[in-house]
């Protein structure tokens, strides 16, 4: 029974670690933090799998939310802010460019170009929300636009993405 659990876990890891690592990396933009977070994320999945509620969505969505929340927590931590201040920013940028060529799924190679098709405002919205954890009101404040406009743009951006995926 236990051996089977570990086997199931390995299956889970093989299927989702790429996407999880990609999201985490996109958020913290540091290999060191991303590796630590990947470890934390899968330990949490292991420990909390009984909390997963199939009625609230697919397992993949649940896993992505765990990964994203852990990474955003790290992003806001003092430890992260102190570390990233001293690091060379350009190094991180070059790594981040690397990620798309390493994509798990061959069909998504060149995705960068596809995402780039998003109008710049829409891309910024997605980045701020999904990868930097801004709330809708924080975005409205940051981009100095009414809440209604934020909603309209987000909807437009998601509808563009929907055509891609």
């Amino acid at each position, binding site marked *: *029974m236990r051996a089977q*659990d*570990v086997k*199931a*876990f*390995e299956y*889970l*890891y*093989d*299927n989702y*670690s*790429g*996407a999880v*690592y*990609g*999201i985490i*990396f*996109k958020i913290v933009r540091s290999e060191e933090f991303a590796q630590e977070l*990947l*470890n934390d994320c*899968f*330990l949490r999945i*292991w*420990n909390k*799998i*009984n909390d997963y509620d*199939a*009625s*609230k*969505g*697919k*397992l*993949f*969505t649940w896993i*992505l*939310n765990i990964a994203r929340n852990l990474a955003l927590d790290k992003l806001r931590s003092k430890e992260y802010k102190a570390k990233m201040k001293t690091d060379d920013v350009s190094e991180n940028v070059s790594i981040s460019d690397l*990620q798309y060529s*390493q*994509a*798990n*799924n061959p069909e*998504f190679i060149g*995705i960068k170009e596809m*995402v780039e098709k998003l109008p710049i405002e829409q891309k910024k919205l997605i980045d701020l*929300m999904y990868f930097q*954890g*801004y*709330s*809708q009101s924080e*975005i409205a404040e940051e981009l100095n636009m009414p809440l209604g406009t934020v*909603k*309209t743009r*987000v*909807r437009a*951006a*998601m509808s563009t*993405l*929907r055509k*891609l*995926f």
Partner: protein
Amino acid sequence: MNIEEYISSGVLELYVLGALSKAEAVDVEVHAAAYPEIAEELRTLQATLEGFAQAHAIQPPAHLKQQIVSEIEKTVAQNKSGKTVKSISISNTSSLFNWLTAASIIVAIATSVLSGYFWSKWKNAEGHIIALEKENVIFAQNANYQIDSTQLIIQEKNQSFSFITDTATTKVVMKGLPISPSSVALVFWNKNTKEVFLDVKSLPVPPAGMQYQLWALDKGVPVDAGVFDLATAGNLQKLKSINSAQAFAVTLEKAGGSPTPTLEQIHILGTI
């Protein structure tokens, strides 16, 4: 609610992108559970985001897997007691079904909450009925008691009346002596039945530890007819039966009465 408007408002997109507050997110989940169209829209958006995430996939360094798996195996070894059973389902079943499940669970919860509400209402009503029934029983008991006691009083009065009007009954008026000039009481004595009834019209309240005592005087010899209190004044009090008497008198004695009357304490006296 206008479902189309809700879907096009952009709130579902904000939900999947994690840009809603906890309360706003719960609100979306409630809507999704209640309206299949919203659940379907949400499912599509989640699938889009999953694709988006998959597109950002980066193969993590290979050594990480072994590191994580061995950590998991460690926790398995520690948990040999087997407290928690892990069940990992990796199914791709349409999450529409999941939303339907959620919707039906919410309906079930709502139904049970409602039935709980009605149950407590019903329970309350039942409680009221029981209380009313109890009140009713008590009221009936009181009414019966009133009727019974009234009948008892009537019966007593009738008995008194027939006793007093009996030709064998003699009325003796005892009048106040100088020690208590304004006192007066009546004695009704029936020569046949030997019964004695007393009707006190007026007597001073006795000092503490003292009681009035009725005496029958038969050929100059005082015979004890019993002690009495003023509490029931106005009603006839039945005292000890007396075989033969020519006069009646009341003295003030120590509580419980005396074997012989204290002559200087004769308050009232009446002769036949």
